[in-house]
């Protein structure tokens, strides 16, 4: 098939070692399937910013119950998508020099400590490609606060702040 596939946006910068495919993402996180929610990292600019993709499919197990006959990606899982992208950004900061990414020690990505001011503005359903973006807003020692955005087809789907201790 040569058409109608999801359009993958490529966003490059000189400091970026991205894009990372799903296997490379797994190499940078302590998470393992079925609890890996990032399919690709498009932009990685440690320590400031990362952009990633989550492709939503009806095969994901939670859609059987959330909700029967009306599949909607749970907001907590969308939040987890952004937390994992922030985890990749932190891991990249710990292990990379610009343009050269080495494998991160799994488990070094940090723990989610606070979810602040999240708003979910539209439903995310199977077939959607979610663009995720996290940007470092504040940092005090091991505590980082990220501004997070999720969008589908350039429409904002969710936004908020995540605090991660790493």
């Amino acid at each position, binding site marked *: 098939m040569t058409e109608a596939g999801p359009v993958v946006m490529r966003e490059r910068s000189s400091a970026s070692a991205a894009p990372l495919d799903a296997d490379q993402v797994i190499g940078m996180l302590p998470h393992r399937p079925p609890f890996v929610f990032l399919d690709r990292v498009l932009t990685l600019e440690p320590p400031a910013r990362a952009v990633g993709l989550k492709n939503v499919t009806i095969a994901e197990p939670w859609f059987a119950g959330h909700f029967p006959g009306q599949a909607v990606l749970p907001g907590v899982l969308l939040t987890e998508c952004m937390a994992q992208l922030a985890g990749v950004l932190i891991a990249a900061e710990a292990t990379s020099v610009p343009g050269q990414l080495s494998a991160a020690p799994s488990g070094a990505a940090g723990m989610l400590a606070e979810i602040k001011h999240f708003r979910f503005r539209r439903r995310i359903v199977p077939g959607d490609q979610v663009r995720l973006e996290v940007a470092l807003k504040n940092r005090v*020692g091991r*505590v980082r606060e990220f501004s997070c955005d999720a969008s589908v087809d350039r429409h904002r789907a969710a936004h908020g702040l995540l605090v991660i*201790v790493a």
Partner: protein
Amino acid sequence: MDYEKALETAAGRLRICSQLRRMIVDRLDLPIDADWISNDQPIFGRGLELDSVDTMELILGIESEFEVSLTEEDQVAFGSVGRLAERILDDRPALLTLP
């Protein structure tokens, strides 16, 4: 320093301490009355038992309410509400006499 000036300075310090105690309770959602915190009570450890996430919240709060930027290096300042007030006044002595 004359007597009137000393009184004004003391009142200013108390006002900043009071604002800090209120900010700590509000921003950290502590289940206590702001007046229960004393100005020399340790904020971390066995004091209010705040953690590193709370530290960042306090730093952001102080920046927003007092326009003073603290960092993790300011550990002495986080010893107590009184010390935080001193640190804020070091940067913004004018706060002492503001209405």
